[in-house]
Structures are given as structure tokens and as C-alpha cells.
């Protein structure tokens, strides 16, 4: 990079700190709807940012510091067995769902198939040990919510991985830009490890941050615009309550590792199947995730993903409501 870049970065950092200090002392926040939209969007960004940074860091480690042969050598050749193992990566990589997006991109950059990477992406937030512990803390083994969440999420992820693996031209499931980036991996372009790290940091942050910002703004706007009680008035119907909580999960975009605590107070109003549908659907498909997925997959792929995850969650929730 040019010689002026480091001093410019330093000047930028000092400017941000100085502006924050000045505005704290001299400006007043405005109140009301617009401010709440801004506060909600910023909260979503501040909460997601560390996971994005962790995800980018892990993607860098996977692409720059781990040899490609190592990533493939110990995985089974059988596609079902391979996806079954890939979908358990979340146990050792406990990153929230937004952090999994750069990691899934990194895995594809290292030659993983679209189906394999998506299986990881969908299963990881649910088999994440933090998610399991918080779901257990919230619900214990009551009504089979914990088991249904883990098994349901795992099966849905593998189902989607299998579906996508049958696509005759998997590259068409990806955006043109990302498919091109996979072909020209940064590791091949650069010479030193630090140049590869830099290149990946710039390309991943440029791909993800605008999407995350737009997703956070849309999620904030929906939260401000749609009264919560409109969704929650539907709690006792076995089918509609499932749809209502899936809609709520889509709108609030809360992290998988804590969504069990969020939904716990609603357990008295809503049937157990509806709670499970919320816990399975939310980590996979929400406003923020759709915006992030858009950086990598075509809208057609995301539509298919949303339809399959939505129908499977609906089926799981409705069956549970009928049985439990």
C-alpha cells in the first residue's frame, strides 16, 4: 500500500476519538422514532461486529495459515458422511451466525463445495456449545425443546446441503463476484503471508460490512414500524403461533447463542412447537443474515434456502404442537 496509508489510518483513528469526545460534550441526542431506529440499528451492529471480526480472523487463518490438504485429508470422501462432519464444525468453532458467513466463504475459498459450506453455515450456530448451554439453561429438557432444536437444526442443515449438492452447476448458486474470488484466491495473488492477510481483510470487510449495515438498518426500521403485540397476539393457535414466532425471529435478528433467553418469557403464551420453530428458524434466516448471505449466494439460492428452512421449521413446530 502507499506510504501515506499508515499515517492516514492513525489520523483517522485520532479523528474518530476526538469527534466522539466533542459530540459527547456538545451535542444532544434527538428522541423518538428516528433515534430509536438509529439506536436499534447501532445496537445490532455493535453486537454483531465482534463476531464478524472473529469470523474474518478465522477465515484468514483457514485460508492463509492452514494448508488446503489438511482441510480435506481427514474428511470422509462420502458426501453424506462429509456433510455430517462438516455440520459439527460449530462445536469447535463457537462463532455466532454472522461470524460464520466469512468463515463459510473462507472454506469455499479453500475448495469446499457450496453444499458443504452451507451445511456448516446452517448447522454451526445451533450445534454451537454456547447455544446448547443457553438453551438448556432456559428450557432444560422440558417439552423436548432442546433436543428438537439441536436435532431439527442439524437435520435441516444436512437436508439443504444434500439438496444443493445435487445442483448440476453449483457455481451458479454463488454471486458472480464471489465465484470469481474463489477462482482467484487471495493466497495465489499475493506473495507474503501479511499481504494475504491484508488482502483478505480488505475483501471480506468490503463484502460483509455494507451488507451488515444495510441489514441492521432494515431490521431497525421493521422493529420501529411493526408493533410487537401484532405478532404476539397469535400465541395459542398451533399453526399461526408457529408462523408468528418465525416472523418474530426473522424481524428481531437476535444471536443464536442468546435467543433462548429472549424467547423464554414467551413460553407461557406460546406452544412448545412455536418456540422450537423460533429457535431453529431464527439462527438460519433473519433480516441480518439474508443481507449477509447476499454477499455470497444469489437471491435464487437464498430464496430456496429460506423456503426449505421455513417449511421444515413450520413442519417441525406444527408436529410438535400436535404431539407435545
Amino acid at each position, binding site marked *: 500500500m502507499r506510504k501515506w496509508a499508515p499515517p492516514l489510518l492513525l489520523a483517522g483513528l485520532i479523528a474518530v476519538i476526538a469527534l466522539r469526545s466533542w459530540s459527547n460534550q456538545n451535542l444532544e441526542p434527538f428522541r423518538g422514532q428516528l433515534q430509536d431506529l438509529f439506536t436499534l440499528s447501532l445496537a445490532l451492529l455493535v453486537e454483531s461486529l465482534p463476531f464478524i471480526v472473529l469470523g474474518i480472523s478465522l477465515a484468514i487463518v483457514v485460508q492463509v495459515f492452514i494448508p488446503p490438504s489438511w482441510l480435506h485429508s481427514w474428511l470422509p470422501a462420502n458426501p453424506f458422511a462429509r456433510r455430517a462432519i462438516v455440520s459439527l464444525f460449530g462445536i469447535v468453532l463457537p462463532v455466532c451466525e454472522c461470524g460464520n458467513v466469512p468463515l463459510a466463504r473462507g472454506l469455499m475459498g479453500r475448495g469446499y463445495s457450496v453444499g458443504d459450506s452451507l451445511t456448516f453455515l446452517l448447522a454451526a450456530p445451533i450445534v454451537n456449545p454456547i447455544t446448547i448451554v443457553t438453551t438448556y439453561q432456559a428450557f432444560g429438557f422440558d417439552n423436548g425443546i432442546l433436543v428438537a432444536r439441536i436435532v431439527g437444526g442439524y437435520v435441516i442443515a444436512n437436508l439443504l446441503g444434500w439438496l444443493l449438492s445435487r445442483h448440476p452447476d453449483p457455481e451458479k448458486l454463488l454471486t458472480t463476484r464471489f465465484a470469481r474470488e474463489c477462482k482467484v484466491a487471495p493466497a495465489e495473488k499475493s506473495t507474503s503471508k501479511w499481504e494475504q492477510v491484508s488482502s483478505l481483510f*480488505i475483501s471480506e470487510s468490503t463484502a460483509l460490512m455494507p451488507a451488515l449495515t444495510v441489514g441492521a438498518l432494515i431490521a431497525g426500521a421493521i422493529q420501529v414500524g411493526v408493533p410487537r403485540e401484532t405478532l404476539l397476539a397469535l400465541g395459542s393457535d398451533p399453526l399461526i403461533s408457529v408462523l408468528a414466532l418465525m416472523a418474530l425471529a426473522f424481524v428481531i435478528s437476535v444471536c443464536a447463542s442468546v435467543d433462548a433467553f429472549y424467547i423464554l418469557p414467551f413460553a407461557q403464551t406460546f406452544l412448545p412447537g412455536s418456540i422450537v420453530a423460533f429457535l431453529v428458524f431464527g439462527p438460519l434466516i433473519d433480516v441480518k443474515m439474508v443481507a449477509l448471505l447476499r454477499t455470497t449466494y444469489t437471491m435464487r439460492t437464498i430464496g430456496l434456502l429460506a423456503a426449505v428452512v421455513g417449511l421444515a421449521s413450520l413442519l417441525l413446530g406444527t408436529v410438535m404442537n400436535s404431539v407435545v
Partner: protein
Amino acid sequence: MWSNLLRFRGAFAIVALAVLSLTLAFDGTLAFYIHPRYNIFTISMGIIAVGLAVVASVFYRGEDHPPTGKHQHRQSTRTIEKFSALLVTGFVVLAILLPPTTLSSFTATNRAFNEGALNTEMQAPTGLSREAFALLTVRDWASLISQNQDPAFYRGKTVNAVGTVSASDERDVFLLTRFVVTCCAVDAQPVSISVFLPGWQEDFAVDDWVLVGGGFQSAGLLGLSEGLAVVPTEIGKTEVPREPYLF
């Protein structure tokens, strides 16, 4: 200039938001947005983001392979990129400039009061002294009231709670409100108790932070429609608490 802004818009956003998170943590206002259990993680990742940016500022060489493809597709992609760069820049600048603030009564009203965040297993500290009740938060009181509306139970027990002012359906009553947060402000659930204070609008504005001290009386005695309300013996504006949400 444009091409540089477009190319580095993500890195710019990630570093600016990381530094913003660090300054919020330094100010003690990170709790306006996220649960405090994430503070160390957020600070650590913020430092790593700045570190990665420093590395990139020294070693990044630029794209070796310029994008290829149909001209029209490139045009529309560039328009989207410009729009997203503007949006991200605008948002980040606003985030830096606007002082941190909590959610307002607009969101409290938009979400149902006392619907999801009450502690249904809340036990009244009956065995303790009456002073113990003065330590209860708005959420604790709202949880107790949801289980027991017998005015006799609350007789002689002192409320000493902090919250914001939200308007209620009754003219002489405002709702002393707090948000309960599980993860971040996005999942905030409002809890409230009623405060009976005729003419409160003259002294307080909606969203003011107030400290209310007093005791409960039944709605019937106060000429209200239902429930219990605090009749304040002392009330005044107060500073925003260090942790404005209840966790």
C-alpha cells in the same frame, strides 16, 4: 478517490465501528447497546480489528485482477456499491457524531408493556425487612404485581425505583419504565409500574429519567380504572443510570 472509497468502504466501516465500540466501552456507555457480558469480547475484537487495519495499511497491495464481466452488469454493480458506500459512510458518521442514548418511550409503547420480561418466579422478600423492598427494581415490582394485586400486601412497603417517564391511558398516571435486555437493545422488553401524580406533565417530560419514592395504593381509592399505582412521596429527575437497561 471514488475507487479508493469504494474499495475500502468495508474496512473503513469495520475500523470506525470498532473504534466507536472501544470509545463506548471507555465512556461506560456500551451498556446502552449491548449486554455487559459482551464487553470484554467486544473490546478484544475491536482491538483485533484495529490491528488488522494497521497490518492492511502497511501491506495491502491492491487488486491484481480487476473485475471482468458485461459492461451493463458492472455499471449496475458500481451503482449499488456507490449507494452502499454512501449509506455506510453516512451511518458511521452519524454513529460517531450522535451521543449515545437509550431506547425511548416510543419503542416501549410499540412493544407491549410487561408482556415478556417479567420474572414469573419472582418471590416477594416477605421474610426480610420492609427496607428490602426499597431495593427492588421496576421489573421486580411489575413481576410482583403480576402475581399479587392485593393492596394489603403492599401496605407499608416502600418503592424506591428509577426509570423513564412514559405516558399512560390515564391522565393522572405515568408509567415508570425500564427495558429488560437479554442480548442487546434489539431484544429490549419494556416493564413498567404506574405512578399516580396529577399534573405530572407540568414537571416532567416523556423520556425523563426520574427517581420515584412512595407506596402503592389501589386504583379504586385513586379513582383509576384498574390495578395498583405508586403514590409518590418524593420524586425528581435523575441522571441516566450507568446501566440503563435491566439485565
